């Protein structure tokens, strides 16, 4: 179906952000070259344009950064909470002031639509710093006993799907509780973390309290294994999470892991269809489906399958894929060539296993990494596309007849991060929510986040919670 009215392009200006041709590591308050002199390039996934050349951290740099964080820890942890709070409030304010710049930067480096960085990522980033700023001088009242102590140096490794938001989730509670941090952003999205280093400078944050080490998995592994790191926080794949759990075994390091998911989005026959369709779209196509809590398995009650799929396909046909900097764009670029290859291969397997593939008519740009929104029907629980996390804009549709069957299918996965329920019946929401083994359950909505609300997984989706009062525990000796 051709659109009745085409949208004129509405590109956001990239003039607001000034990306330097090269960046160093941020250690002890200064940008510095990597010890081994290695560098890597970060590209814009939408155009494959090289944005900047970044110093690549190695184990020697990890050691330097951990030492800087250790030195800074003594004074930082001894600061009155009210003073630490003020630093965090400053950071939150500067993020708000620079939010347009950061949104454009994040869109360039990550490939996600400006609509999302502007309206979802950046407001949440600022909100997280505001939220945890307020905890810094109230830790005695957080329910962990009087005078809970920080752990020391936190080694944090974050993914590429929400680069700045994941940084905020990790750094805000760590600093509020008096820890110092060494953070490794993902190799495909290092820029916003380096801009954050500049925000730390503007806020007058003492040297060494925050250190940023762009690099690859080897740098992350070295950071996690470093003997002088007291706390390990990781968001990323379940496979790497398991490796980290093995690495920290037998040590005193406290660890929290936010890992993969294969969220079920359950639609009952009495659900408001139009709203459910919006929720399904939001659940799997937000951030090109590169979301650990994405609703990647749609479980539809059999009696409404036809009606729902028809609405869903009609809605998907209106999604606009293209330039992430265009304010009308719904679906941006896949973050990297590697990720595109993974999505493509899993989707091909889905077809090979007999599931039925559908995409709306959708023209893909010629350069960059793109994948059209994709729907699979005739999917069974045994299909790989119903079991493996695809981390892309690919929705598998399964059906059920009774609420018990829906629950059984929803729980039939080693993951346990998120789930959605769509029904107008309150008792059904509560009954089903109770039985779902998932850390976050959205009913009649999906993919909502808030700094006050604990987020994290059951089972192989990891352990620990981020956000809310619960998020403090990960950074306190309790």
């Amino acid at each position, binding site marked *: 179906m051709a659109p009745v009215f085409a949208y004129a392009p509405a590109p956001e200006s990239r003039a607001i952000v000034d990306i330097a041709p090269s960046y160093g590591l941020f250690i002890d308050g200064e940008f510095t070259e990597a010890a081994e002199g290695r560098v890597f390039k970060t590209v814009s996934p939408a155009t494959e344009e090289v944005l900047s050349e970044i110093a690549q951290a190695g184990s020697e740099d990890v050691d330097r950064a951990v030492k800087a964080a250790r030195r800074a820890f003594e004074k930082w942890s001894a600061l009155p909470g009210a003073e630490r709070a003020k630093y965090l409030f400053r950071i939150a304010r500067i993020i708000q002031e620079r939010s347009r710049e950061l949104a454009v930067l994040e869109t360039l480096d990550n490939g996600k639509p400006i609509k999302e960085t502007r309206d979802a990522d950046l407001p949440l980033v600022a*909100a997280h710093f505001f939220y945890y700023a307020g905890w810094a001088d109230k830790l005695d009242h957080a*329910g962990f*006993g009087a005078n809970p102590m920080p752990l020391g140096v936190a080694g944090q490794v974050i993914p590429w799907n929400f680069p700045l938001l994941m940084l905020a989730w990790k750094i805000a509670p760590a600093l509020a509780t008096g820890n110092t941090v060494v953070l490794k952003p993902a190799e495909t999205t290092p820029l916003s973390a380096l801009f954050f280093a500049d925000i730390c400078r503007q806020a007058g944050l003492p040297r060494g309290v925050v250190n940023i080490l762009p690099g690859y998995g080897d740098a992350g592994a070295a950071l996690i294994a470093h003997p002088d790191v007291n706390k390990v926080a990781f968001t990323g794949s*379940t496979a790497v*999470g*398991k*490796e980290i*759990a*093995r690495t920290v*075994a*037998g040590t*005193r390091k406290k660890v929290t*892991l936010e*890992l993969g998911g294969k969220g079920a989005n359950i639609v009952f026959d009495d659900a*408001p269809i*139009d*709203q459910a369709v*919006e*929720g399904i779209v939001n659940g799997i196509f937000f951030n090109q489906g590169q979301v650990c809590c994405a609703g990647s398995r749609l479980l539809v009650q059999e009696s409404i399958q036809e009606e729902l799929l028809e609405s869903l396909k009609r809605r998907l046909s209106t999604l606009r894929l293209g330039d992430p900097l265009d304010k009308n764009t719904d679906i941006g670029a896949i973050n990297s060539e590697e990720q595109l290859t993974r999505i493509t291969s899993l989707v091909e397997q889905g077809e090979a296993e007999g599931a039925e593939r559908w995409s709306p008519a959708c023209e893909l740009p010629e350069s960059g990494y793109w994948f059209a929104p994709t729907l699979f029907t005739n999917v069974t629980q045994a299909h790989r596309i119903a079991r493996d996390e695809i981390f892309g804009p690919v929705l598998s549709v399964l059906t059920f007849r009774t609420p018990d069957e829906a629950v059984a299918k929803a729980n039939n996965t*080693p993951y346990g991060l998120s789930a959605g329920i769509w029904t107008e019946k309150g008792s059904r*929401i509560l009954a089903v*929510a109770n039985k*779902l083994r*998932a*850390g*976050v*359950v*959205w*009913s*009649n*909505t999906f993919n*909502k986040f*808030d700094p*006050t*609300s*604990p*987020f*994290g997984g*059951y*089972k*192989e989706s*990891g*352990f620990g*919670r981020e956000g*809310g009062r*619960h998020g403090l525990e990960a950074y306190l000796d*309790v």
Partner: protein
Amino acid sequence: MSDRLNVLKTYKLYVGGKFPRSESGRVYEVTDSKGKWLANAPLSSRKDARDAVVAARKAFGGWSGATAYNRGQVLYRVAEMLEGRRDQFTREVAEAEALSKSKSAAVVDATIDRWVWYAGWTDKIAQVVGGGNPVAGPFFNLSSPEPTGVVAVLAPQESSFLGLVSVLAPVIATGNTAVVVASENAPLPALSLAEVLATSDVPGGVVNVLSGRTAEIATPLASHQDVNAIDLAGADEVLAKELEIAAADNLKRVLRPQPVDYAETPGIDRLTAFLETKTVWHPTGSLGASGSSY
């Protein structure tokens, strides 16, 4: 002493509410501190451990689905039954830990009180660690604690009864089910506790008690894909590390061994260690794109 010959007890495992012998047919000699023979305890095998996990999984739905009030009642009932067997446990603990009768009695009293303390937690922990979150938007959301599932518990080696109860009661108080590996050298109080549990309204399978070599039984439990968490209290440093590595295969929640004075009133750490937090969201106002609202 009368010349009557007393009747000895054959100690057995406790799995799924029943008292089987070890599948392996093996036993090992349990002695007091002076080397005097006390009993032959079952020497559990890998298969016993797996059977216990199956029983614990089967019991999980019912136990975690029971109301917190009901779980509290059942746990308190255990304390009542323990009180009635106070003399038996005093003797068993005295033999197991080489304590005088009066010291052993004090330990047993503390153990019963510990059980009562945890019984009272079942319907309070949710309010302490859960609650409503003030979301910045038209949503209502609620974070509630939920049991993590089947928990393997390696009971402390030295404290055969107070230590055992201090690690077991918090696991089941919150709705988890447990597979307990009793103290290797002093398993008899644990095996007798099973008899109390069996007659205290605790559903079969909620607690399963194994005796034997801790390292031998713990290894299959730590790598078991249907065990959700493991408490390493009874493992030494080397074993604890091995088990923690094995536990990573399905990302079990691991409670590492730590110095604990079991005589002290515990905090809530052992309750929260085996809880997940679930956050449930619902819109309160606008129903999204359509703009309709209640």
